[in-house]
């Protein structure tokens, strides 16, 4: 599965939505249930899925699908 597909699958699992329907600009304002609790759930689900670890300071910044994809890509590349 491509990184994009896996990313969408995590969104689908956590929020109970169609993975393919997630858009780049989607954020807590556009996705139902993306509150502060779900945000941390999402972050740690991503860490488990991609075997990466975000620094604490970046966690509150991951508030759109685009921002998440960029940070995950960066982390994955850093891990080689």
């Amino acid at each position, binding site marked *: 599965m491509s990184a994009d597909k896996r990313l969408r*699958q*995590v969104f*689908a*699992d*956590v*929020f*109970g939505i169609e993975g393919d329907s997630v858009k780049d600009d989607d954020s807590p304002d556009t996705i139902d249930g993306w509150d*502060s*609790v779900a945000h*941390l*759930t999402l972050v*740690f*689900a991503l860490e*488990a*899925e991609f075997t990466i670890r*975000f*620094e*604490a300071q970046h*966690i*509150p910044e991951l508030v759109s699908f685009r921002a998440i994809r960029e940070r995950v890509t960066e982390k994955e590349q850093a891990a080689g």
Partner: protein
Amino acid sequence: MLTIPLDPRPAEYHRLAREIAVLERSSLEPLRVAMLSSFTLDFLRPVMIVEGARVGFGVDLFLGDFGQLEQPILDSNSTLHGSPRDVLVLAFQPTDIAPGAFDRFYDTRGASLDTLCAELANRLLHSARAFRDRTGRPVLVANFATPATLPLGPFDASDPTGLTHRLAAHNAELAERVYTEPDVYIWDYAGLVREAGSSNWSDPRLQLLARVVVAPESQPAMARHLVRTIAALRRPPAKCLVLDLDNTLWGGVVGDGGLQGLQLGDDWPGSAYKAFQRAVLGLRDRGILLALASKNDEAVASEVFRSHPEMLIGWDDLAAIRINWEPKSINLRAIAAELNIGTDTLVLFDDNPVERAEVRAGLPEASVIEVPSDPTGYRNALFASSYFDQLGLSSEDRDRSEMYRVERTRTILQQEAPSVQDFLDSLEMEAEAGPAGSETLGRIAQLVGKTNQFNLTTRRHSPADLKRMAEADDTDVVWMRLRDRFGDQGLIAVGILERQEEDAHLDTLLMSCRVMNRHVEHAMISYLRERGAAMGCHRLIGEYRPTAKNHMVGDLFAEMGFAAHGRSDDGTLWEISLTEVSAWPAHIRRIDDSEGEPTI
């Protein structure tokens, strides 16, 4: 049926929790759990739903605002009391109340930690009592976990009054206080953190960002542990472990290779079987009965018990033995009948998957442990199974195996006695009876909760209700203990009287099956008639409510001289006058009729 993977990933928990809510709800046993905690637990919700469903519970989790303890319990308008709860869990940790409690331990050489833990324990006990008394529901109190990072690091345990040992002392004190409190139990959070590994328990990012103490990867372990603990509140423990012989208690087939060919000893591969036997005896030590069901020749198999130097389990440790070529399900039925216990209280441990499948099909109410193919895993498979889980161990539990062994001797005596009366006389029975008090309520609650056969009304009063009835003026909760020449049988009968004008109604009358056929019920009825008369009543009204399991007492009241008194909603009523003195059976010596507590 939804398949739940062994180890779901965090995101999967969310998907599964939603699917369970839609698909599985109706097939699950509803379990409404309320938690009050000193730390954020919102993340636990989907994990609890999934781990609950795995063992058959439809979990509905209520979480209080973190940090709140007394307010939601004492305020009758709080959301905690907004709907019914089956159990309340209190999870409060010292460091959440005073962040420096552990890291600044040496500021006061532990004095401030002692004060903090003592005060927290007071608050927890007070709150647990308040919730229990108000709702009649049980409360679990989490004990205090030792942190991964200790003030003295790897040398913390070297200080006899350091944090490690102080926390252990506070946990012991908490357990002591909870032990005597009906319907309040310890949730071993400290043990859970230790087992899961305290260094991975918390994630400092989550802790400092959002006060989340339990890291996401620790949450499945926490949910499983909590669900298992709550399940022990709801499901009575199994009573008997039924064991196979070849390739279970020893390696090899004794019928083929004889004693010399068996693997059993201190070196591999025999060490795996010896380790398993030790674990089995550990269960016996705490009152679980052991039985054998093996397809073998009895003479050949018993020879291993008698002559193999490495055998740990003795022939005398076994409460029932079925060595023959019958199907195992039939032998399990026979074992249950011999021991006077339900077939649903049996647990089979058998290396052979075909036998396990036969028992699952032929005796579906019995439990079957999934045994790994590698014998080095037997011991852990036994420990991991939750069938024998028990929240509190009474002294009767510890002595039960011994009592069943004595019972076998007693049966032999009975066969030798010239008449029933001679046999009863030879037992030299002594009975003691009295009203329930704090020392006896625990055992009384246990008997009320689990007695099926000699139980006239099968009313499952909660420990809190029993305590209330024991204290109330118009109800009387009484017990009887029995001793005989073989030893103390413990507290074996319970009666509850309820005054209704001039009648004393027998709300509950039950007796432990192990003293059946000894006319102890005559003594119990006689004592109850005395108590009823002492309440100022003129008649004792007995009730028999038939169930699938209590046919044996269907004629009890008629046999005891009661006259028919019509029907109740779901049974028959019986009456007997209290104005004449009732006869105490001659073969049972009455040693005390004090108002106080028995000597235990």
